[in-house]
């Protein structure tokens, strides 16, 4: 009762708002819509790639290593870490990053500025030290490594901040790859190995004190860990699952923009992307929902039919989807931060035409689910009676194929595209149910036949017993008294 009144009131309010909105629309018809409120600031260009550190060539023996490995525990640990690293194995020595003369065993010679010794490179210059070799195609050719990381880095949020504010707290090469302990990305013990990436990024991004100056939330790792993606990667150790870098990029790390998100998700969800691109949503570009509008970002969950409608109709604010004063369509992704609001009826209110379309699509899927659940129930029942239900199970699998395709077809927002698959799924589920029902009938027949057979056997037992009693029992006559009469 009260719900109904609430709804009416809300509609009233909607109508009130609609009048000026339409007026405003008429007035401003034809004017360009201000779609993107914050245009992307242009990137600060990165510096050109520097040339590698020059130093005298070393001999057969790396004197830096020889001396430092026996200095003290700390130096020994550094030396040995380097020795086990990909650089140590590939002959990239101390002097290649620190300068100096690796051929001399005299501290005054080897570590003299005259021989180009620079000591520990500053954080600003570290990117250059790494980039000097790693952007050199000639050097990298023999390792088959790409050389775009240096340029990419300067385009990242990390690199831009370093350029813009000389902020050395941002991530630089060594924060992810290690300094002396650089390992191949394919090495499962490397921090940059796909399965280890989320933990690596979270070393900084989950630290509130580090993130506080930038006003960035720190719950991404926890949210991600509970998402389908995080579960696949962290719990199931599935290297194909997306980590942070799959969506944000690695060297060029930056959150994907609204205009990019479809491509980012579509990298893996190819079939779904294709279907989405057929939809009205896709045509609307910035004003329409993207992947993350319904599925979220770090917290992507297993989609279900619950994504269609709120359990209770929400409070409709015109400004959720329309921007004053001209009431053009807009879509602010923050409106969908709360998982409970990622629903079709967040925008498509019950008075709209599209609402009934959503209802029809939801109904088509729901019908298929219902039919499948019914078939599954019958199959389970028949199974528990010991019946073999392979045929019904195959039919149900076929039905599920149709259903999954129907689910994917929701992304086209076209009812007929969905019902093509859900009708098939419903029909197949009905077929499976009929098959399971036949097994149940068969089981009932067996039980009935069993009761009849048992009855006949019992009659037989009685008959034989009668025959037995009726036969002469000569030996019993010797006993105390005869059994009958």
């Amino acid at each position: 009762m009260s719900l109904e009144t609430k709804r009416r009131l809300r509609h009233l309010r909607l109508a009130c708002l609609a009048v000026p909105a339409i007026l405003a629309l008429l007035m401003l018809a034809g004017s360009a819509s201000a779609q993107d409120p914050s245009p992307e600031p242009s990137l600060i260009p990165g510096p050109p790639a520097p040339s590698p550190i020059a130093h005298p060539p070393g001999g057969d023996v790396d004197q830096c290593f020889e001396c430092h490995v026996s200095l003290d525990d700390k130096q020994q640990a550094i030396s040995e870490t380097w020795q086990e690293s990909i650089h140590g194995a590939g002959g990239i020595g101390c002097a290649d990053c620190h300068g100096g003369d690796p051929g001399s065993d005299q501290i005054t010679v080897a570590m003299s500025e005259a021989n180009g010794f620079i000591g520990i490179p500053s954080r600003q210059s570290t990117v250059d030290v790494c980039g000097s070799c790693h952007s050199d195609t000639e050097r990298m050719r023999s390792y088959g490594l790409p050389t775009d990381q240096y340029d990419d880095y300067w385009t990242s949020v990390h690199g831009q901040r370093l350029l813009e504010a000389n902020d050395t707290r941002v991530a630089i090469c060594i924060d992810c790859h290690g300094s002396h302990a650089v390992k191949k990305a394919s090495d499962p013990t490397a921090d940059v190995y796909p399965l280890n990436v989320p933990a690596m990024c979270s070393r900084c991004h989950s630290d509130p004190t580090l993130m506080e100056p930038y006003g960035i939330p720190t719950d991404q790792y926890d949210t991600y860990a509970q998402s389908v993606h995080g579960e696949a990667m962290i719990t199931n150790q599935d290297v194909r699952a997306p980590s942070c870098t799959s969506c944000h990029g690695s060297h060029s790390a930056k959150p994907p923009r609204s205009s990019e998100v479809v491509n980012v998700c579509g990298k893996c969800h190819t079939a779904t992307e294709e279907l989405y691109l057929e939809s009205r949503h896709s045509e609307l570009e910035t004003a329409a929902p993207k992947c993350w509008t319904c599925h979220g970002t770090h917290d992507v969950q297993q989609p279900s039919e619950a994504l269609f409608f709120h359990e209770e109709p929400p409070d409709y604010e015109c400004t959720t989807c329309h921007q004053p004063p001209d009431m053009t369509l807009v879509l602010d992704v923050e409106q969908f931060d709360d998982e409970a609001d990622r629903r079709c009826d967040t925008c498509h209110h019950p008075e709209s035409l599209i609402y009934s379309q959503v209802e029809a699509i939801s109904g088509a899927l729901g019908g298929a689910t219902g039919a499948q659940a019914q078939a599954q129930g019958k199959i389970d029942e028949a199974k528990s009676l010991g019946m073999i239900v392979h045929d019904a199970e195959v039919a149900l699998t076929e039905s599920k194929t149709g259903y999954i395709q129907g689910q994917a077809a929701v992304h086209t927002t076209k009812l007929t595209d969905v019902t093509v698959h859900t009708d098939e799924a419903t029909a197949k589920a009905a077929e499976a149910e009929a098959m399971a029902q036949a097994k149940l009938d068969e089981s009932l027949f067996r039980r009935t036949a069993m009761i009849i057979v048992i009855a006949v056997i019992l009659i037989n037992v009685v008959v034989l017993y009668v025959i037995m009693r009726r036969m002469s029992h000569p030996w019993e006559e010797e006993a105390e008294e005869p059994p009958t009469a």
Partner: protein
Amino acid sequence: MSQQPTADPGTSGFSRRRLLAALAGFSIISTLTMIVAPILGFLIPPKTSGAAAGGKVLVGTVADIPPGQGKVVPVGSSPTIIVNTDQGLNAFSAICPHLGCIVTWDPGSNVILCPCHDGRFNPTTGAVLSGPPPSGLPAEEVTVEDDQIFVVSS
């Protein structure tokens, strides 16, 4: 247990014998019926062809699956996809190892395609080409005799 006739002590020996004989006859006939009926039913060949009982299953003729085409056919209790490529006929389990959808033949790209999540499989080896399937499609043995295609279910 004791029925009306048994409780009657005054019956003559002759009718007693006849009663016993009749009872024994009933017993023998009913027991034999119970045992023989299912056995006879078992011996009658069932409607479905014995081919479905495993071994080589006829799935169609070569004309059904021209080169560059593929088709999903039931083999026993499991759907199987037969594809006719340049490398000849191949058969694979048609159940996608990702979520159990039934794969189809994609004539456009000449691959086996799972329509649910765009998993693609190599039509000659069954290996995953792209998409979410965690493993390839298990191969089935396929033979051609004259123009008939048989799948040896495993």
